[in-house]
C-alpha cells in the first residue's frame, strides 16, 4: 500500500517534468525555425532585391537567408491547396519575399534590425514569427518552477507519510526493540531494519512511478498516432531520458531512507525500556 502511495505521489511532479521536457523540446526545435518574413513591393527591381540581400548578408544577427520569388510561392500555394486557384484569381497576388533565421531572440536586437530593414527601399512589410516562442519559454520556466514547488511539497508529504508508517512499525515491534535494547543492541542496530524498509518502500514507489510514466507515454503516443493519421501532423510524445528515471528511483529511495531514519531514531529514543 505504502509503495503505491509513494508511486502515485511521485508521479505528479514526474508527469509535470515529462510534459515540460516535451514542451521544451518543441520550443527548442521551433527556435531554430524562427524567422522574420520580409515581403517586398510587387514591382521591385532585380537590383533592389540584390541590394536587400546584400544588406541581410552583412548583418551579424542573420543566420540563414532564403529568397522565395513570387512565382515559386504561387506554384507552391497552388500545389498545397490542390485546387485550381489560378482559374478564380486573375493574377499572382503573392509578393517576392525573404525568410531569414536569426541568431537571437533578443527583442531589442530584433527591433533594431527591423527598424534598419524598414528604411530600405523596396520592402513592403516585415513580420516577426518568433515572439510567441519567447512567451512559450517564459511559460515553460514558470511551469518548471511550479513542478519544483509541487515536487518539494510532495516530498514533504512523503517524508511525513513514510515516517508515520515507520513509527507505527516501531510500535508493532516494541517488544522486540525493548528486548534488543536490554541485551545490548545499539540504536543503530535496531534502526537498521526500519531503514531497509524505508529504502525498499522508496525503491518500490520509484518503480511504480516509472511504470505509470512509461505506460502514460505509450498510451498518449497511441492516441497521438490516431491524430497523426487524421491531421497529417508529426507529433510524438517523447519519453524521459533514462537518467531521469534513475534520478526518480534514487530520489524515492533517499526519501524513504531519510524519513525512516528520522522516524525510527525518534521512536526508539522515546521508547522507555524495562518498566
Amino acid at each position, binding site marked *: 500500500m505504502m509503495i503505491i502511495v509513494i508511486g502515485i505521489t511521485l508521479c505528479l511532479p514526474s508527469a509535470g517534468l515529462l510534459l515540460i521536457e516535451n514542451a521544451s523540446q518543441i520550443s527548442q526545435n521551433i527556435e531554430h525555425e524562427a524567422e522574420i518574413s520580409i515581403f517586398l513591393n510587387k514591382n521591385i527591381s532585380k537590383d533592389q532585391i540584390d541590394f536587400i540581400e546584400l544588406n541581410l548578408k552583412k548583418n551579424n544577427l542573420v543566420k540563414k537567408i532564403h529568397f522565395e520569388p513570387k512565382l515559386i510561392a504561387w506554384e507552391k500555394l497552388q500545389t498545397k491547396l490542390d485546387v485550381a486557384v489560378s482559374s478564380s484569381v486573375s493574377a499572382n497576388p503573392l509578393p517576392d519575399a525573404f525568410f531569414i533565421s536569426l541568431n537571437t531572440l533578443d527583442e531589442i536586437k530584433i527591433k533594431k534590425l527591423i527598424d534598419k530593414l524598414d528604411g530600405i527601399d523596396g520592402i513592403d512589410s516585415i513580420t516577426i514569427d518568433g515572439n510567441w516562442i519567447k512567451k512559450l519559454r517564459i511559460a515553460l520556466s514558470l511551469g518548471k518552477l511550479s513542478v519544483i514547488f509541487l515536487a518539494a511539497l510532495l516530498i514533504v508529504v512523503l517524508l511525513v507519510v513514510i515516517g508515520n508508517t515507520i513509527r507505527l512499525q516501531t510500535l508493532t515491534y516494541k*517488544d522486540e526493540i525493548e528486548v534488543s535494547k*536490554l*541485551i*545490548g543492541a545499539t540504536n543503530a542496530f535496531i534502526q537498521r531494519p526500519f531503514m531497509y524498509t524505508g529504502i525498499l518502500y522508496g525503491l518500490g514507489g520509484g518503480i511504480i512511478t516509472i511504470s505509470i510514466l512509461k505506460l502514460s507515454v505509450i498510451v498518449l503516443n497511441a492516441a497521438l498516432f490516431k491524430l497523426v493519421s487524421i491531421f497529417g501532423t508529426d507529433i510524438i510524445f517523447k519519453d524521459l531520458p533514462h537518467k531521469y528515471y534513475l534520478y526518480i528511483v534514487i530520489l524515492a529511495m533517499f526519501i524513504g531512507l531519510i524519513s525512516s531514519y528520522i522516524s525510527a531514531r525518534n521512536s526508539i529514543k522515546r521508547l522507555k525500556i524495562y518498566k
Partner: protein
Amino acid sequence: MITFEKVCKSYPGSPEILQNINLEILSGELVFVTGSSGAGKTTLLKLTSALEKPSSGSIIFESQNLSQIKDKEIPILRRRFGMIFQDHKLLYDRNCFENVALPLEINNMSKTDTNRRVRAALDKVDLLKKEKMMPITLSGGEQQRLAIARAIVSRPSILIADEPTANLDKEYAEEIMNIFYSFQQVGVTVIISTHELPSSNINFKRFQLNEGSIQNLIGHVHLPS
C-alpha cells in the same frame, strides 16, 4: 568486580528508593538480593546492569564508573551481562532457537558459530529438542529456562536474574536455581533478586533490602543440606 559506594536512587516526585547503599560483589560469587516487594531489589539490579543511573554515589564495575558512563557505551556494557527477567521478556513471534540467537545476532556473530552456541545453550537448559517450538507453547519453567539460555548464549561474566522463580511452583523453581548454581560453579558471577532464599547446599552472599537500605550483609554462608 562490582562495588556500590554511597549509592542513592530516587525518581522525580517520589521518595528515595535506595539510600546510601554500599556493597561489594566479587567475581564468581553467588549473590542473593532479598527483601519484600518495593524494597528496591529491581532498582538495585537495574543499577548493576546500567539500565538506570544512580542519583548519587558511584557504581564501579571492573574499574569503570557506571554513574558516569556515556549513553553510547551502555549497549556494549550490557552485552557483558546475562539478563533474566521475571516476565522472561521472550519474543513470542520467534521460535526458541531464534530467541536464544538474538544476542549473537546483535554481536554480529557468524551463522555457524551462532548455530553451535545456540544449540549448546539450549542443551544446557535441556530445551534442545524444543528449539523449533514457539515460546508460547512452553510451560512457565521452560520459558524461564529459555530466558536463561538467551542470557548465557553470549557467555557473559555476570548473570543477573530478577525474581526468576517468582511465578514458578516449587519443583520448577528448584530446577531453575540449580541451573544458576551450575553456572556459579564454573566461575560466572550470579546475582539473583528474590523474596526468599532457596534451601540449598551452596555458598552464597546475601544482601537484605528493607525500604531502600541494606539491613544486613551475610558473608559467605554454607547452608547445610
